[in-house]
């Protein structure tokens, strides 16, 4: 569903004129987007509101890993692949997720529920290997725990 442009516009009005407000506006737009991403229309909107070239907004959006420019699933699964998780078996976790969800890192499930992303350190190495689903971190993971964990999100989506 594409929302009416004036509604999207209202979501970022408070940031216009704030010093450094553009990143905040982008955060706000993405968090209120159905498909968890910033569309070309969003980027044009931000450019015109802040009076900067579209290229500058585009450059900023693509610089940061928390922003996406293609539609993503309802839930974003981030798997840390840095050394502290790597030495305690993170690659097994990623492989198990890929197998279970039938997608590769970077992909979105056909039902649009999950997007799988390999990411840099999440800062919860004390409970490595760890993954993050949206803003919730799950640690001390074994691949056996994954199906039950994902089932919770599926159930919630059906309810």
């Amino acid at each position: 569903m594409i929302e009416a442009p004036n509604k999207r516009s209202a979501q970022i009005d408070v940031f216009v004129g704030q010093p450094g407000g553009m990143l905040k506006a982008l955060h706000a737009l993405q968090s209120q987007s159905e498909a968890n991403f910033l569309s070309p229309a969003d980027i044009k909107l931000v450019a015109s509101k802040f009076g900067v070239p579209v290229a500058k907004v585009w450059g900023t959006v693509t610089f940061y890993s928390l922003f996406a420019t293609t539609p993503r699933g309802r839930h974003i699964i981030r798997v840390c692949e840095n050394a502290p998780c790597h030495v305690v078996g993170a690659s097994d976790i990623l492989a198990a997720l890929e197998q279970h969800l039938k997608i590769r890192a970077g992909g979105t499930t056909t039902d649009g529920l999950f997007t799988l992303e390999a990411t840099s350190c999440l800062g919860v190495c004390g409970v490595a290997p760890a993954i993050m689903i949206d803003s919730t971190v799950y640690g001390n993971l074994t691949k056996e725990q994954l199906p039950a964990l994902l089932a919770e999100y599926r159930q919630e989506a059906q309810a």
Partner: protein
Amino acid sequence: MKSLNELKSLRERLEKGQQLAEKPLRTIIIGMGTCGIAAGARGVLLAIMDELAAKNLSDTAVTQTSCIGMCEKEPLVEVVVEGKSTLYAYVNGEKARRIVLSHIINGEPVTEWSVERALGGRV
């Protein structure tokens, strides 16, 4: 607050308050840092609240703190009864319910789940 003196008097009031106030008989403190939450502290919190409500234990206070540094042992739950503290490691919902039954109701700490045991590694 307007000055150092005011801060001092507030601190004294707080200290006195802690001494005078009806202290709860028992306190359960749950580690709710990101690592605790990542290891399942929310589920533990819910299980404890649920068990306390089911057993009508309104004199037991439940509170939270953040990470103490033993992230790998999370979820950590500290039970303080009459000033004596026991810190439990690797707590899950089921263990939490048993801790309430055994430690809070019967006054018997579940020593095999204490963190001192867990410091040798996961059992």
